């Protein structure tokens, strides 16, 4: 009989983690729909980037105020999880504050004290975040792509954190022996007086309730990640690890194109040669019109995006009222990828053509052509997302598969082809500048 709560806890824990793992596998599958790209070189640099950018939050503090608040929430979140470990052990074995005898009263109290202070700081930071999102006029939170679910998602995360932090403090405030010991109740001692009128039994019930809701809340929050932009707390690590290490100005050269161009330029190649029998050349699609044409890193980028909008707030096209928003490029890529994933789920593991694609149905040519390829979005992203590479791959599709460039660009390209310059000048006049003084 006395084991009921332990069993209940075990079932809760296993189903909470199990459901999360089940969903995360879908994300892995979806990311693997992307094309191969080797990002296993230079492991030392990659680990360093992950340590600096994800673990060390080095790019968050580029905007000092929001960066500092974010670090508080992040450090709080990571450190308070040590306490969750104790909660899990207590829950499984029916113990209460199992770490206390191991760590000694003083050190245990010190740790809990630190957790309490962090919890209070996180609570305050989260309130400020909420105010920034809902009261202050911060442009990047008010863009049109933030209407509806993205805004609600952002707020829900904050509510989750507020509730979890409150429960943690309440749980401590109503733990009579903990309050009586008086070590580590740095914050909760101020809440304890509110519960003075309760009988010890009722106080215990409140404490147990807070404890249960707290751990249940954490498991729900874990599973909420799958549906939320908050997934970045996990994916920021692989995303920064697999980030681009080349100079930002270096755009990948398409190997399929190199093959064809070399063949075209090879004077000994026979243009009328009949392809060898049996070797059916699968025509490679140039550029990207749907998520499966993108690389797995670009798809990982889409799942990692936390919709902070720093990219969009630095984008010259967005700043001058154009349709393009790099954040929206990432959000639409994720939306389409999730749609493709659901399609696969509903069709026994294979994708059934739904007559839609990323291009046009999600991202319009108008957005793509507004980009100046200036890399401001790439530079701004605090977790190494590269919206520009998606824009460029989609432009390639528009131009090489559909010949759908704006008219002026077609003229520019014709000029490059005919006279080696984007303007209509004769190549023989290339040296005229020397004489013109």
């Amino acid at each position, binding site marked *: 009989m006395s084991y009921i709560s332990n069993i209940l806890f075990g079932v809760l824990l296993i189903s909470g983690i199990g459901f999360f793992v089940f969903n995360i596998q879908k994300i892995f599958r979806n990311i693997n729909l992307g094309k191969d790209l080797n990002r296993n070189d230079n492991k030392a640099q990659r680990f360093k980037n992950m340590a600096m950018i994800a673990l060390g939050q080095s790019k968050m503090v*580029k905007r000092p105020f929001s960066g500092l608040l974010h670090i508080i929430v992040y450090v709080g979140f990571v450190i308070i999880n040590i306490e969750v470990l104790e909660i899990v052990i207590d829950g499984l074995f029916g113990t209460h504050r199992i770490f206390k005898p191991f760590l000694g009263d003083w050190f245990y109290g010190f740790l809990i004290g630190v957790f309490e202070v962090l919890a209070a700081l996180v609570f305050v930071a989260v309130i400020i975040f909420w105010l920034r999102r809902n009261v202050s006029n911060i442009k990047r939170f008010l863009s049109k792509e933030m209407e509806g679910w993205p805004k609600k998602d952002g707020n829900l995360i904050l509510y989750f954190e507020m509730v979890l932090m409150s429960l943690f403090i309440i749980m401590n405030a109503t733990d009579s022996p903990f309050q009586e010991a008086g070590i580590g109740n740095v914050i909760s001692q101020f809440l304890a007086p509110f519960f003075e009128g309760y009988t010890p039994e009722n106080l215990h019930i409140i404490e147990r309730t807070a404890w249960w809701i707290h751990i249940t809340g954490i498991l729900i929050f874990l599973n909420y990640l799958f549906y939320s932009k908050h997934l970045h707390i996990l994916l920021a690590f692989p995303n920064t690890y697999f980030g681009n290490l*080349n*100079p*930002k*100005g*270096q*755009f990948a*050269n*398409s190997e399929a*194109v*190199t093959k064809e*161009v*070399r063949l*075209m*330029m090879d004077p000994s190649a026979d243009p009328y040669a009949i392809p060898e029998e049996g070797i059916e050349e699968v025509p490679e699609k140039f*550029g990207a019109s749907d998520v499966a044409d993108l690389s797995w890193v670009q798809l990982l980028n889409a799942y990692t995006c936390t919709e902070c909008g720093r990219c969009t707030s*630095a984008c*010259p*096209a967005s*700043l*001058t*009222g*154009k*349709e*393009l928003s790099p954040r929206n490029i990432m959000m639409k890529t994720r939306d389409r990828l999730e749609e493709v994933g659901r399609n696969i789920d509903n069709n026994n593991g294979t994708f059934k053509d739904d007559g839609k694609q990323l291009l046009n149905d999600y991202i319009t040519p*108008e957005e793509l*052509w*507004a980009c*100046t*390829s*200036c*890399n*401001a979005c*790439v*530079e*701004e992203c605090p977790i190494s997302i590269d919206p520009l590479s998606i824009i*460029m791959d989609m*432009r*390639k599709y*528009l*131009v*090489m598969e559909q010949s759908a*460039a704006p008219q*002026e*660009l077609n003229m*520019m*390209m014709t000029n*490059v*082809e005919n006279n*080696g*310059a*984007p303007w209509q*000048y004769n190549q*023989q006049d*290339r*040296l005229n*500048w*020397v004489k*013109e*003084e």
Partner: protein
Amino acid sequence: MNVPIMAEMIAKGEQPELLFWVGAAGSYDDRAKKISRAFVKILNSANVNFAVLGTEESSTGDAAKRAGNEFLFQMQALMNIEILNGYEVKKIVTCDPHSFNTLKNEYPGLGGNYEVYHHTQFIQNLISEGRLKIDDTILKGKRVTFHDPCYLGRANEVYESPRDLIRRLGVNLTEMKRNKESALCCGAGGAQMFKDAEKGDKEINILRTEEALETKPQIIATGCPYCNTMMTDGIKFKEKESEVIVKDIAELIADANQL
């Protein structure tokens, strides 16, 4: 002004230490031609043994690639690489950050491996080798702001070379609010130079010009022929031509040294 041509030098059995890649803008655009000439004057004054490809030079393919035409880019690249490798070119300098980026980063994968310098880096080297001195009296005290070209700055993390040269002019360098890695684009990159902008509420070059004007400059210094055009147009739009001039760093140095 002495501009040796590669084919002629090779015919005479000479090998220049450096190739000056002029680029399409530097060859054909009236404003950018002045930058090419100013830079050549600097090279001449430092007795640099260089050459240009002249009529053998062709578009690097940067604009074509950024417009999405990877075919055209690679055709241009392979053609250029054939010529460059044929002349055994080792070292290239250019005043165009787009050519700089493409030659430096995108040609190696296609068989073109060169030491590539932006002209501000190269001039900096000339100074440190003692081959060039900048006169800091002519422009002394002028208020100057520098607009970072995206393909020099963020794309290749070259922020200090242009600033170092500007400081050597004895001028008063004032940074714009958005500078270095957070600099705002002039609006020309990604092949935008060759098309009208999409529908919006402002032109990008006007926004950037306004940011530059906030520093109350007498000179807006640039390091890119396309940025130069965009900022010059912005100054005209704001009707500030009488107060503010837009000049490439090479032109400022040529002015300062009265070349």
